[in-house]
């Protein structure tokens, strides 16, 4: 029958369309994600006249479906007939831009921004700009918040009368009754400023910025800080002092800690935006105050920025500013009452040594490092240890090793296993910097002790650590120091320790190479195949499978095969299973 082929191909599309309304959210979601397939089958005409009107009203669905729909519509231009018809996508996106769920609204706005670029200048004024206006003057704040994100995309491409209207709409939203809309406007202020003509930035944006930065709501004021960065970048240096700095100074001393926190958090960006001169005169004292703030959250945010701030100081006065202004504050933070502040500082303080050079580091920073290495809070000590490489470059690690060792030992024996885990992860790094001699002498015993830790995660990390050490120090070192101790544990009365031997073999064999594996490890593994505990036996099978590729064929055929065959007829089901798996993987059958 003619057209029978067509019928076949329509069937899956028919299913997809029907599933747009399925009870099951997952099926609806799948269908929405294949919306382009549906549109393609319907053709541009029916997509415009039937599919889009239907989608415009499907705003009752679950968030995840709406989110997918909002995303799809951003890529739909060709499916409705190209840029000429792109405005057909506006109604469904407009209704999605008013739903209560922020993620959906944001996605709808993102798609609207995307398709705005595909509008011709005429269409932009005839279709897109009226939509922005409708949203901006909508009854509900959801639509007004969405409008805030759309001004900047249409502004550059419309006539000057429309531009004036857009500026007016933005002004209105900046003084909206609801804080949600003012927040949305404040968060888009920087972006909008970027597309405005400089004169309007000075006349319009600055007054809006000043107003938002002194809003009664903390949540609005703190967003103005972000806008400050973009605005400051746009203005010529000579205007910054009068137009931006009063507001920024006020924000840095705001009554609300959340606003000051925001200033601290954005400090590096602000510093770059206002340039070296203002940094020297204004930001240095502001930064000092933030480091001494009464709220710990603010101090922690500022402490995080210490290194970046110092790095970006103008080179001519850098050392002087750091030594006379910043360092005294840093010294106080080392003994802060709040551990988050101390640990934030510890994560960046080592970076100062590269900036200050050898002499200053030894004289001023080293005592601070040493104090932090003795801090009561493990996170502080860990942060110092994890950044040792910075100091290593400047003064060498020897200066620190006297204090380092007790700190490491204490962390290695900390009662909290997560702390122990963290220090294990730094071991390879430490070993690299301290050298093999120091390591053998002081740290080797620790690494071995972790192998018999009572927490599995620690034993596992310890085996992994050994592998990294061998990679660093080489097979010879392994043969002399590590392997004998690891293999010795095969005779331990505790079966968990015997299994650790096997796990170590698994991870070490490759790094140690064929000779050590065949001569030293293999015999031990084979011997363990008659262990009374089944868990050990099936781990033998797993280990053999793992180290098989490292062995030569004579060892495989002569030694491994018989053992695996024996295990394959073990009475324990798991042992049998893993033995058979090993036989087939190693192709010994």
């Amino acid at each position: 029958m003619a057209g029978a082929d067509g019928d076949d191909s329509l069937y899956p599309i028919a299913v997809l369309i029907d599933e747009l309304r399925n009870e099951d959210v997952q099926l609806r979601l799948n269908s929405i994600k294949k919306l382009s397939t549906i549109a393609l089958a319907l053709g541009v005409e029916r997509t415009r006249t039937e599919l889009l009107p239907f989608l415009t009203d499907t705003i009752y669905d679950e968030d995840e479906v709406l989110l997918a729909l909002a995303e799809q519509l951003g890529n739909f231009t060709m499916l409705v007939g190209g840029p000429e018809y792109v405005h057909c996508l506006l109604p469904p996106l407009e209704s999605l831009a008013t739903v209560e769920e922020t993620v959906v609204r944001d996605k709808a706005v993102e798609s609207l921004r995307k398709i705005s670029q595909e509008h011709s200048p005429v269409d932009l004024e005839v279709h897109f700009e009226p939509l922005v206006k409708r949203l901006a003057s909508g009854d509900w704040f959801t639509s007004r918040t969405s409008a805030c994100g759309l001004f900047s995309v249409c502004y550059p491409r419309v006539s000057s009368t429309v531009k004036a209207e857009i500026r007016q709409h933005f002004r209105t939203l900046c003084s909206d009754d609801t804080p949600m809309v003012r927040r949305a406007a404040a968060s888009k202020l920087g972006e909008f400023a970027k597309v405005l003509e400089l004169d309007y930035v000075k006349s319009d944006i600055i007054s809006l910025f000043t107003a938002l930065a002194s809003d009664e709501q903390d949540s609005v004021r703190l967003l103005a800080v972000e806008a400050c960065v973009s605005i400051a970048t746009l203005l010529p240096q000579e205007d910054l002092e009068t137009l931006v700095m009063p507001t920024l100074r006020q924000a840095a001393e705001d009554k609300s800690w959340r606003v000051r926190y925001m200033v601290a958090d954005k400090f590096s960006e602000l510093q770059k935006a206002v340039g070296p001169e203002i940094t020297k005169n204004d930001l240095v004292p502001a930064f000092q105050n933030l480091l001494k703030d009464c709220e710990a959250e603010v101090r922690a945010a500022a402490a995080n920025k210490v290194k970046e701030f110092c790095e970006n100081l103008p080179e001519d006065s850098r050392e002087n500013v750091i030594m006379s202004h910043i360092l005294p504050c840093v010294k106080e933070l080392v003994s802060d009452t709040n551990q988050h502040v101390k640990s934030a500082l510890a994560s960046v303080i080592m970076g100062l040594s590269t900036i200050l050079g050898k002499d200053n580091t030894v004289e001023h920073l080293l005592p601070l490092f040493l104090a932090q290495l003795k801090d009561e809070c493990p996170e502080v000590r860990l942060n110092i240890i994890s950044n040792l490489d910075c100091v290593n470059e400047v003064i060498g690690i020897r200066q620190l090793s006297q204090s380092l060792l007790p700190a490491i030992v204490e962390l290695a024996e900390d009662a909290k296993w997560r702390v122990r885990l963290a220090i294990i992860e730094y071991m390879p790094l430490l070993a690299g910097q301290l050298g093999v001699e120091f390591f053998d002498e002081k740290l080797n015993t620790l690494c071995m002790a972790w192998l018999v830790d009572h927490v599995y995660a620690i034993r596992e990390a310890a085996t992994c650590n050994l592998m990294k050490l061998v990679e660093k120090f080489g097979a010879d070192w392994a043969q002399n120091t590590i392997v004998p101790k690891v293999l010795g544990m095969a005779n331990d009365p505790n079966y968990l320790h015997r299994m650790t031997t096997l796990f170590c073999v698994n991870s070490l064999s490759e790094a140690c190479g064929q000779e050590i594996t065949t001569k030293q490890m293999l015999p031990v593994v084979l011997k363990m195949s008659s262990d009374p505990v089944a868990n050990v036996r099936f781990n033998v099978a797993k280990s053999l499978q793992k180290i098989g590729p490292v062995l030569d064929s004579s060892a495989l055929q002569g030694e491994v095969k018989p053992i695996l065959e024996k295990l394959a007829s073990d009475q324990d089901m798991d042992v049998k299973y893993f033995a058979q798996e090993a036989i087939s993987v190693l192709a010994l059958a």
Partner: protein
Amino acid sequence: MAGVGGGNDFQWCFSQVKGAIDEDVAEADIISTVEFNYSGDLLATGDKGGRVVIFQREQECKNRPHSRGEYNVYSTFQSHEPEFDYLKSLEIEEKINKIRWLPQQNAAHFLLSTNDKTIKLWKIGERDKRAEGYNLKDEGGMPRDPFPITSLRVPVLKPMDLMVEASPRRIFANAHTYHINSISVNSDFETYLSADDLRINLWHLEITDRSFNIVDIKPANMEELTEVITAAECHPNQCNVFVYSSSKGTIRLCDMRAAALCDRHTKFFEEPEDPSSRSFFSEIISSISDVKFSHSGRYMMTRDYLSVKVWDLNMENRPVETYQVHEYLRSKLCSLYENDCIFDKFECCWNGTDSAIMTGSYNNFFRMFDRSSRKDVTLEACRESSKPRALLKPRKVCTGGKRKKDEISVDSLDFNRKILHTAWHPNDDIIAVAATNNLYIFQDKFN
């Protein structure tokens, strides 16, 4: 406006009563909270059975002039279910402790409801269109013969009867060790606070997996516990200010700008105790059961067992106004202690202009106080006077001596019929009064 107009103060008439008339009341039907939304067009109640019922005010219509202002059921849904905490071997009741509306953000309405442990954000939305037309089945759901498909059908939307749907949007759980007594939406409309006996948490309305603990009064050793948090509320327009009341009769005002943790208060409101009236029950009856900011944000009102106090936020050492709610019970405290009534938590509310306040009492009585004239009235929520537009008669309680006509003796008050929850329409003179399982709606007589 009722309560303010010179001569005719407190002239209220009956409008509606909701709930069953039956004498034996099912525990689950007892109303546990009442709350108008911001416009007053919706009125929500929660009950001990975990249900939320929302009433909508009818629009004025020409052919039924009397129907104006009537509230009819708009949506009913089960907000909370009984649960069992297996770790602590504790039953978690489904009882709705509080409902708070969110400001309207689109065509749908949103509210927070909470039981002892879990806060939920509900959306109440309308749907009036339905999609029609399938490819592979007919409207009845019977499969069509799949072959041959000659054309694709896109569903079309057809109007249908209005359907109101309530759907849970967010669940804020696992943040409270003790029982939640208050929730309050902040004026930044992106955060809200929830308070239990010892802690207050601050949530973001869109984030359910974490909250910030802003107040923690739990002592290291629970044996040193001397007071608990009884209520908390955010300031109506200063987003950084909130207050919480304690079982010791004090109120602390905190400023969230000052520090991330609000363990240190900014203001401390306390009235010095009158040593002459001190008794065994002093501490119990001074415990604050509710605190509410006035709409203007200038004042706050607190309810303790026997009185309502209005505080000026600028004066910490004593309230500016004190109203006795049922002073005649002072001699009955002993028996009220024995039947546990002394621990009842009465709430209080302001009218739309902050000129009058209302709170409940026993025997289905509720009290109103006009703040400028200092006049007060006792009214009763009962079915006897429930003829439409019937004027409510003021009640009087005889306080010893000879009982006059129309007076009720203290001894004949029914302590099982108590009015704990009341709400006042934000703009109009309409009040909602929860009396056990019945919700009474009254309006001023000119309406």
